[in-house]
């Protein structure tokens, strides 16, 4: 069809699959459709997608290997750099896993602060996703409107944790510093603003006919497929798979809180979209339950300066904004882990992309990637 200038990453495989009339285009690693350095080799038939092959590794930093040379206090900061949009939650998982090995009971105040931070992070992540999702579909304005609320969360984080993106606030034994005196007031202000402004998204995004037509019936991922691809988080809950770690394996006192696990049965992009919108409201609900009930006390348990984990294997999973995040630590009894392994949600969710995208149009691929909410450093680590 065209003068052959294709750069095919994996030549043999692609040439074997290439038929007459196939049109191979590369999306990424530098491309506005990918929110990071993901490389997709897309085989097209006209505008219709025949195959999508993700090529990974452009931002691989071997974080797991790096962690093996760092002590149990030090390695947590690296995990903020994986899924940088839910860095608190990543830190939380690591801290929980280390605490499991240390067998310390952390104070109630620290627990509540951690949950509050997690939920704020979740809202911030979903806000960014919502804007980026709309931008993938060609609407620029929602991006700036959602950033207005996200900015408030970032300000809260900056005041309490001292950073806006990679906080390194949750440490083994509790949290690094006590919350800032303004914290409660600011969070209440945020909740007020958020609930008054989230309706605007219905006007310019959710209710828009073009948007609905771009989302409904697009990127179908059936319940069975979602399970077999190992999808978690909103991507799986959009297909009706109940997989909220906060509900099925509660940690840190989530079992005492009143909130719903959001499930949609649409299996399409719109279901995954609605999941995230409704999850933000559940996060607000959790924050409202906790913000006035932060118990007094220490923000950190008394721990030794140098943490040593007993010999053994420890695993902890949490629910990040994208799905289930797991930390697996093998300890030989020293100050550094012998082996560490992260189960990142983005990697499994990405694997479903090819299945979802086949047979749909090129424009919808971007929407599907949007609804999977891929964060590339999370996939590559």
């Amino acid at each position: 069809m065209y003068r052959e200038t294709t750069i095919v990453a994996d030549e043999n495989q692609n040439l074997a699959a290439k038929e007459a009339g196939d049109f191979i285009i590369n999306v990424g690693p530098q491309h506005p459709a990918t929110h990071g350095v993901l490389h997709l080799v897309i085989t097209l038939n006209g505008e219709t997608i025949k195959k999508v092959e993700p090529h990974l590794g452009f931002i691989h930093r071997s974080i797991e290997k790096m962690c093996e040379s760092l002590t149990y206090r030090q390695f947590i900061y690296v995990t903020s750099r994986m899924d940088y949009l839910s860095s608190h939650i990543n830190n939380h998982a690591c801290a929980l896993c280390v605490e499991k090995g240390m067998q310390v009971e952390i104070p109630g105040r620290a627990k509540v602060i951690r949950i509050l931070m997690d939920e704020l992070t979740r809202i911030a992540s979903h806000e960014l996703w919502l804007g980026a999702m709309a931008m993938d579909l060609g609407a620029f304005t929602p991006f700036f409107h959602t950033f207005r609320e996200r900015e408030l969360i970032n300000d809260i984080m900056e005041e309490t944790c001292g950073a806006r993106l990679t906080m390194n606030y949750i440490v083994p034994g509790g949290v690094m510093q006590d919350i800032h005196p303004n914290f409660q007031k600011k969070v209440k202000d945020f909740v007020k603003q958020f609930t008054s402004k989230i309706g605007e998204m219905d006007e310019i995004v959710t209710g828009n006919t073009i948007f609905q037509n771009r989302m409904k019936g697009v990127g179908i991922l059936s319940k069975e497929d979602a399970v077999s691809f190992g999808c978690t988080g909103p991507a799986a809950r959009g297909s009706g798979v109940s997989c909220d770690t906060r509900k099925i394996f509660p940690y840190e006192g989530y079992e005492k809180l009143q909130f719903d696990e959001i499930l949609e049965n649409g299996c399409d992009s719109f279901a995954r979209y609605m999941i995230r919108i409704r999850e933000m409201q559940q996060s607000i609900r959790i924050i409202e339950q906790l913000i006035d009930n932060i118990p007094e006390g220490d923000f950190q348990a008394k721990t030794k300066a140098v943490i040593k984990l007993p010999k053994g294997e420890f695993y902890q999973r949490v629910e990040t904004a994208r799905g289930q995040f797991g930390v697996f630590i093998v300890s030989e009894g020293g100050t550094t882990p012998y082996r560490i392994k992260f189960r990142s949600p983005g990697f499994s969710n990405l694997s479903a992309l090819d299945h979802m995208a086949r047979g749909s149009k090129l424009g919808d691929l971007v929407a599907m990637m949007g609804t999977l909410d891929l964060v590339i450093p999370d996939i590559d680590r």
Partner: protein
Amino acid sequence: MGQMISLSEISKIIDNWLRATFNPTWTLIIEMVIAGVCVIGLFAVLGLVLVIMERKVSAWIQIRLGPNRVGPKGMFQSMADTVKLLVKEGLTPDGADKFLFNLAPLIAIVVAMLLMAPIAFARDFQMWDINIGVLYVSAVSSVMVISILMAGWASNNKYSLLGAMRSGAQIVSYELSAGLSIIAIVILTGSLSFNEIVHSQVDGWWIFKGHIPVLIAFVIFIIAATAETNRAPFDLAEAESELTAGFHTEYSGMKFALFFLAEYVNVFIVCAIGATLFLGGWMPFHIGSWQGFNQVMDYIPSSIWFMGKTFFLIFLIMWFRWTFPRLRIDQLLNLEWKYLLPISMFNLLLVTAMAILGWHF
């Protein structure tokens, strides 16, 4: 009416002076040169104004300040951008068809220039009062698609090719409903000449005296015009989230600037045509028998009326762009073939009935 110095007066003075000084051939040549210089000047001004307008509109919609560094309130930002584009290297990719690659932006800009000819900018101020003005515009604007197809193919880039194919399908389809909504007005006025169309609205703009059918035609025209100029929500040819930049992915420097300029000038032209057909061109706004009000309206120069209406439509198109998400290619064609075209055909029947029965004012 008590006209002050209007554009037509100025042009008449220049014309008389030239005729008195030179022989007719030289007069014609000099007038052509003046017209050419004016068009190029208008292009430059339009490019500068529309770019800064787009950026400010988008900024305010997006709760931002927008450009605010260069000049007062950032008003000279687009000049700085132009200088940047001028001094940038114009790259030609190695595998490109160099002749066609360099020709495509020129065609885009020449087509935009040709489209300027029959537009009535003010009372008695028109470069070429061609008696088939409307047909001329739809004919010449159909050449626009060639430049996009050419750019897309000659770039030797797959994104460009996809963008060009999309754009071709899109423009060819939307020309139909744009044409049909223009024909609605042509039926009501019984003329294809812009001048006569404007004069037919002396007792009221068509959008007011044409009832609902003309309103529908106007809405369809605006939608089709947005699609024909490749602007969001119909910017599939560029679709930056899917195709990087579509047909002009490989263009840089001045060649890109020409495409960019042509896009904005085309927006201006379709809005000018919309203003002429539906909003009375340079006709001032009159309300029935309010003599005082009408005289005040008459006192505003006709060129201001024309520009005001045109820029209102341009603002409308920009408002669309910063509100709506982009359509998918099949939805785009569905919208045209399943909605706009049947509706405008039915609407055309209504308009014809209205014109025959004389139901309009």
